[in-house]
């Protein structure tokens, strides 16, 4: 009867455990002052992780914004994060796109590369392979724009590093569920 079978709290199990997962949460909120601070403050105050966060208005007439957050934790912690977000008064809906499954995730990055001669050619060749576009060029540099999944962008940046990577700007992940319906 004394066997400790009861699973511990998400707070005690969140650290150093192998079952940490990355989830993408789509949070529909009222576009009002302070709403982003509420969401971000919730994460910092309760010790949750933010791996990426994007926010923009998605329905002007209804004053709705969508915040897309990539977070990581145990499944229990992720469930708790969803409920804590739902407690915020301006939050309309929280969708765990990773649980829904098959969501499309995209990120946009702008990558500045400096170099001459053979390096310039190599940079353009790789950009072509990744379907990145040149959006600025000087005789010594390019700025590439590319969109894709985060791992694709990571890979592109790693390839550019030895060629002459100068700077990177990324938007963070935006995501949406597949199919006809809004989840």
């Amino acid at each position: 009867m004394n066997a400790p079978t009861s699973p511990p709290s998400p707070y005690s199990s969140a650290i150093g455990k192998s079952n940490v997962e990355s989830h993408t949460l789509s949070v529909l909120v009222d576009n009002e002052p302070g709403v982003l601070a509420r969401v971000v403050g919730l994460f910092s105050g309760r010790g949750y992780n933010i791996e990426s966060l994007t926010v923009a208005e998605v329905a002007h007439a209804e004053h709705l914004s969508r915040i897309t957050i990539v977070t990581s934790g145990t499944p229990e912690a992720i469930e708790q994060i969803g409920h804590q977000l739902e407690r915020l008064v301006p939050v309309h809906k929280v969708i765990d796109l990773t649980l829904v499954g098959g969501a499309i995730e995209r990120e946009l990055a702008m990558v500045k590369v400096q170099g001459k001669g053979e390096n310039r050619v190599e940079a353009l060749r790789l950009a072509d392979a990744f379907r990145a576009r040149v959006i600025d060029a000087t005789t010594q540099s390019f700025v590439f724009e590319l969109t894709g999944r985060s791992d694709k962008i990571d890979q592109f940046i790693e390839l550019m590093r030895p060629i002459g990577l100068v700077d990177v700007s990324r938007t963070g992940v935006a995501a949406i569920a597949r199919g006809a319906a809004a989840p």
Partner: protein
Amino acid sequence: MSKQMSGAEMVVEALKDQGVRTLFGYPGGAVLPIYDALFQQDFVKHVLVRHEQGAAHAAEGFARSSGKTGVLLVTSGPGATNAITGLTDALMDSIPLVCITGQVPTHLIGSDAFQECDTVGITRHCTKHNYLVRRIEDLPRILHEAFYVASSGRPGPVVIDIPKDVQFAVGTYSAPRNNQHKSYRPQLKGDAGRIAQAMTMMTKAKRPVFYTGGGVINSGPAASTLLRELAALTGFPVTSTLMGLGAFPASNKQWLGMLGMHGTFEANNAMHDCDLMVCIGARFDDRITGRLDAFAPGSKKIHIDIDPSSINKNVKVDLGIIGDVGHVLEDMVRLWRTQSLEANKSALKAWWTQIDIWRARNSLGFRGSEKTIKPQYAIQRLYELTKDRETYITTEVGQHQMWAAQHYHFEEPNRWMTSGGLGTMGYGLPAAIGAQLAHPKALVIDIAGEASIQMCIQEMSTALQYRLPVKIFILNNEYMGMVRQWQELLHGGRYSESYSEALPDFVKLAEAYGGVGIRCSDPAQLDAAIQEMIDSPKAVIFDCLVDKMENCLPMIPSGKAHNEMILPDMDAQMGSVIDEKGKMLV
């Protein structure tokens, strides 16, 4: 009906429309227009506190004892920051408050103006919701919305920050129309399928226990009645958290007493050995669960809560029912009756036999004395001499609070006001003032410690100004007793800074404020002295000099399980009961 008026007048008009008759507050530059509007009416009674923390706790005491929303009005900057402790306290204990703060005019916001602070920024983390009103057009809606948000779902504090220019601006006021919020709509009815499943689990249970909490009180008096009905129908034992005391009558034979760190032996062992735990409006707080991986190991758990985030937060449960406790209990009582459900009576009989064995340990027992007043004895006498009146008890935080919870017995909800979640010293006196204003004819007693009472002692002045006959019953052991007890437990009895040096003469202090002071150190004279306090028509400070070294027992040492309690008759070596891991906990 809509009318043209200034922002300040809208505030007062909205308070009237919300039925607010008592407002706690303290004026200042940024709320002067609202104070001017208050001056010109007599529907809303303003109660002037002596510190904004007092306003917040008084509003809490008012709310907790009446079931209404507590309201306070404070100025910008220090007015708002002083109220923060009370707001956080209300958030932790789910008390509905609306706090109106003044703000510097909109064109000065962000300029580090005099008495400016980022009130919405600072209070974002210690309120359920908050608003900065930048336009007069938004003010009427926000005022009414704030009352809706504060009182619906899991209640909590809401701040409305109103810049001074918005208070002067003229706009159109309209009365509240519909309470539907566009995004905030807490679920009240529990899922029928899940409730049915819960009933099946309850009929099969062999060792069940009801673990109830402050949610039953927050749900309203009907929920307490339904809890009593369900307990009577099922025959299950009932225990409660600190916040839930009074929801179930202490005189009922199914009552096990409070559970948790300073709960009874029978309540904690019933929690540990149960096979079905029905948690009703409680949140598996660390004071309740003790060591999590040894918490009620062989049990199935049902959790009823209006806040979905409470379910599976600290403890994974088998069946979560989201909904208002009152609604769910109503469904449960109805189902139990209409389907003529039966508990497993033979198993229950054996379970009660076991519980009676635990009860026989008399875990609240203590060694009496003829020379010194034992603090437990003082509470027992206070209870015996006040139980037949309409009595409301508030407390400060520490040993006296736990002794009050253990030895004062509650029959009704809303009679017990204490700072449970945040553990705020200084809560009790202002809370008593709030409770007394809500119940002018009742006997309101703040059970205090000599250290805690000094944190908001200035509110004595408020009590005298409004002729509130609150009684402050100080268990004076000349120590921050709970700190001293933990230093004994964890730090080799090195009582670092926990001795109450240079105490005031509380009798003279009471007299200086214009109240009555009583001192007692002799157990033989205690009853007469308490009676004198009760009979006094004025505010009283009762300085009860008690045993200085008494520890608050029983106790689950931190890091231990429910069945590893220290009992008063064990004579345990206090310094060696907590291991290294436990020392890390609070």
